[in-house]
């Protein structure tokens, strides 16, 4: 039995991403280090820790521990991995718990037989599920609201997009668009990372190259897009039913922070205003209603009778 130390040793662990965290966590678990004795740092091992206490009490996690493997369920691992994509410290996120200590706390409980640690009714589990839900939602937002603009280059057809994800979902979006776009070449630029697809392979860059950022932002902000840009905006305006105006439901599904980079975003306030001021009586789009109409004469080419002879 180990003697109880007079002063508890504090371990420092570094992780930049989930896989690094996992390696560190495995070592700590195998050495039986409880969560309270670990300080987690976002970043590489080589970076100095600005808030380090005198180094005599700080130790990196032991490299060798007991050899028994740590096992958790695959669903639980997915939950941890996806909750780790959540970016804490944003405007809406308030006093968020940092991710690595939370994940280690949950992992610690799981390996001690407390399966409720990942259940949504549990205090820790609830945070994980909320984060995973937010991450899933943001990935879905990326699939839905990202807009490609066509910008051919010397090699031919090419597409570029600007997107500002609230969480680390760039790879989830990139895989989706690789399936979708087939052989077309494209680039996605975000404030943090970027990714390009040359028709057969994904190329991730962190940080995103400035040239990509500049071109993507220019393509998105330019008001005078090409002919198909105008066609899309025409479609959007026409498919709207003013008799069913419902601002609340629209903004619940499509948060306003995305409107800026949508090809149709600037149309929305005008469409709403028009609907409110009288256009709400009819479902028909007003510009269509103003065109010349055409009633068709009856008795034109009678329909063939059905198989039973009835009409």
């Amino acid at each position, binding site marked *: 039995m180990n003697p109880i130390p007079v002063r508890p040793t504090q371990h420092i662990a570094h992780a930049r991403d989930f896989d690094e965290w996992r390696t560190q966590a495995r070592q700590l678990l195998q050495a039986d280090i409880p969560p309270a004795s670990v300080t987690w740092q976002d970043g590489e091992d080589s970076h100095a820790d600005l808030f380090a206490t005198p180094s005599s009490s700080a130790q990196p996690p032991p490299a060798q521990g007991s050899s028994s493997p740590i096992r958790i369920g695959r669903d639980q691992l997915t939950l941890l991995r996806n909750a780790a994509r959540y970016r804490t410290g944003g405007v809406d996120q308030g006093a968020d718990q940092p991710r690595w200590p939370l994940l280690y706390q949950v992992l610690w409980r799981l390996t001690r037989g407390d399966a*409720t640690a990942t*259940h*949504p*009714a549990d205090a820790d589990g*609830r945070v994980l599920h909320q984060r995973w839900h937010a991450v899933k939602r943001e990935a*879905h937002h990326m*699939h*839905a*609201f*990202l*807009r490609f*603009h*066509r910008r051919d280059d010397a090699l031919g057809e090419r*597409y570029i997009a600007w997107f500002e994800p609230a969480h680390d979902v760039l790879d989830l979006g990139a895989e989706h*668009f690789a*399936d*979708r*776009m*087939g*052989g*077309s070449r494209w680039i996605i630029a975000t404030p943090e990372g970027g990714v390009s697809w040359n028709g*057969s392979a994904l190329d991730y860059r962190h940080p995103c190259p400035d040239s990509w950022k500049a071109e993507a932002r220019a393509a998105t902000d330019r008001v005078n897009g090409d002919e*198909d840009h105008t*066609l*899309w905006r*025409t*479609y*959007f*305006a*026409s*498919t*709207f*039913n*003013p*008799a*069913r105006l*419902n601002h609340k*439901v*629209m903004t*619940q*599904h*499509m948060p306003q922070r995305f409107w800026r980079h949508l090809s149709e975003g600037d149309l929305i306030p005008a*469409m709403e205003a028009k609907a409110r001021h009288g256009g709400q009586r*009819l*479902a*028909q*789009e007003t510009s*269509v209603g103003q*065109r*010349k*109409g*055409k*009633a*068709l004469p*009856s008795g034109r080419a009678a*329909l*063939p009778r*059905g198989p039973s002879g*009835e*009409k």
Partner: protein
Amino acid sequence: MELIDKLSILADAAKYDASCASSGAPKRSSRGKAGLGSSSGMGICHSFTPDGRCVSLLKVLLTNFCLFDCQYCVNRRSSNVPRARFTPEEVVRLTLSFYRRNTISGLFLSSGIIRSSDYTMEQLIRVAKLLRETHQFRGYIHLKAIPEADPKLLEEAGRYADRLSANIELPTLTSLKTLAPEKELGTIHAAMGHMRQGIDAANDDARQDARQPIRSGNPRRQAPRYAPGGQSTQMIVGADATDDRTILQSAQHLYRDFRLKRVYYSAFSPIPERPAGLPQAAPPLLREHRLYQADFLIRSYGFQAEELLNAPGNLDLEIDPKLAWALAHRDDFPVDLNRAEPAMIARVPGIGLRSVQRLVDLRRLRRIRYQDLVSLRCRLDTLRPFVVTQDYRPTDAHQDSVRLRQNLTAPQPAQMALW
């Protein structure tokens, strides 16, 4: 006419069809292949218009010329609307262009009836065929089925489309005869029957394939799919005096007999120069909302239509159908969450399907307490009279339903805003 004008007219003409889902397609990908497009079973809403409706597919009519004169329809023969017609190539161009920009996940194509039902159906198929075979498009395609069309054409349509639909529009013989005399309820049912047979046969083949080891990597060796996303339909609400009980019974019958994936309920929206006999009121959106809630209870919660409405009339507008049922069946409550069957827990007002699953998972590990309902964010005010946990029994379980209902519904404002 310019393409942009055609698009403006034919998108406006198509907005009355509520079905727009891009879900239910099998997994497809264009990675490493010629062509473009993917699908994954889950739909994507690429944008939302200010009516709160999702823009998921390019939803247009091939043409809004029409031989029929259905009274509720803006495109009816006698209507004075601007008319237009796309060429199949124009629809293909729009679909591919919008798809690459990531503004849609596929195409929803319907049409007015021109020349004949067969001819119209052939034109729709032509668009789908161009997309699938010439452009190797693997995104979503939803085609309307023209009910009088030759069953062979319906069969062909199913090979290219992920979903097919024939709209019932009005659930009874009488209302159809009054408002759409050229349509036949029997013909629509027959078309749905053909589609169901095709879908069932393809599903059987797919199951057979799944049982055998994969013989080759060539997907053409496997059985061809037929509308893998199934079929759906739509009913118009509020165009005539048909009540909710009739609508729900009709929907239940359609789900059972034709194995539809979805029934859509579309509140009748005012159209220009509407014929006499059709209401000029704002669309009955709250009534439509209650029908969707009831529909969901039938499809996913195990309710029968007769349980929700056992007499002629409409669903309660003030409270949702699940709460209405609970208030009328107090003998089944309170439900002990630690002992009851999941299907009964699902009938507790304020507890949704996801929470039911989570509670059932949790009670394998430990006893459920009231705090768990708080953590799972169930609707506490609603469920309180109806549940028992390890540490909680309701105090108002013996209160009569009238009083309970009063307590549960918020005080009504003087004017009820119908959105």
